[in-house]
């Protein structure tokens, strides 16, 4: 998944397609695809600052 995310950052067109739910990424699992799309679409509110050590 590392390489794919690194690649995505360099290809705004792919990122745009991902944002519009037009594509899924081959080479990562369906779970990773879902998580990636969730984050790109900012579906979930970001956590408030935690206080972990």
């Amino acid at each position, binding site marked *: *998944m590392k390489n794919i995310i690194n690649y995505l950052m360099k290809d705004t067109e792919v990122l745009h397609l991902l944002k519009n739910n037009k594509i899924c990424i081959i080479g990562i699992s369906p779970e990773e695809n*879902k998580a990636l799309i969730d984050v790109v679409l900012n579906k979930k509110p970001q956590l408030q600052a935690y206080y972990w*050590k």
Partner: protein
Amino acid sequence: MSLDVNNRLYSTMVDILETYVSNEDMKTQLSDFIDFKKDEGYLFGELVVLHYVIYNNKIENHIFKVAAAIELLILSFDILDDIEDQDNFSPPWVQQQNLSLNISSYLLFLCQLIIKESDFKHKYIALELLVTNALRAIEGQHIDLLNNITCEDRYIDMVVLKSGSLTTLACLIGTVLANPDKATEVQLYGSHIGVIGQIQNDMEGMKRWDGKNDLLNKKWTLPILYLLSVEQNHTAIEKIQNYYNGSVEKHEILKLSKVIESLLEETGAFLYSKVTQQLYRNKAESSIMSLSINKKYKKALLKYI
């Protein structure tokens, strides 16, 4: 959870100090420590109370004492962590570290005594879970302190131990005191709550350039592991690698703070951390949604992920 629960946990901890601690100086210091943590809220105590309510179907006063005991256990770990890491000098327990270490030892035993003295039917199951998960967290902390993790899988294993064990502990103790049969279904997402929180902390740790910045402290965290693995041919990355192996000084890294911040965004280090965090959030959500519990409790649990 409501402010009421947090206030109640606070006042229960104060009552515990009055009841158990006879040395006035120790009592005063502990009181300062508890006050210091009040603004953060008592996440672990909340998880104990929430899980007890979920599986007992009603709230009972005596769960607050156990939840407060778990918060005191977490306080003892916070004290140890800050003294071991030497990266956070704002808490009151870093002022007189010899005394704080002694207080931390005291809390480790006090929390167990409180559970043992409670009148819960399954208190010994809870005690065993406390000890086994606390030991796992300490092993995770040991691996973290060794600071020689260079691959992501081992990093996640360490986080599961260090942070996941503590959230598991809180969720499980509330659960087993109400119904030990439900422990298995809680265990998995309990750990995920800790992993999600730790990854958040890793990201926060790269957005500041004070003493708590993980890179300045030469710590290996998820965004740092990613950054150093995907971007090899950049002068700033070379500097970071040399900083980690001791041939570059901190002030040289500080000069590059803006460049490093940009690299974290541009290379996808933050995106990768967020996606990894989201993976755990989705797993936790799926576990929570599959529980046979009231909808309002599912909603309450989802707030922690």
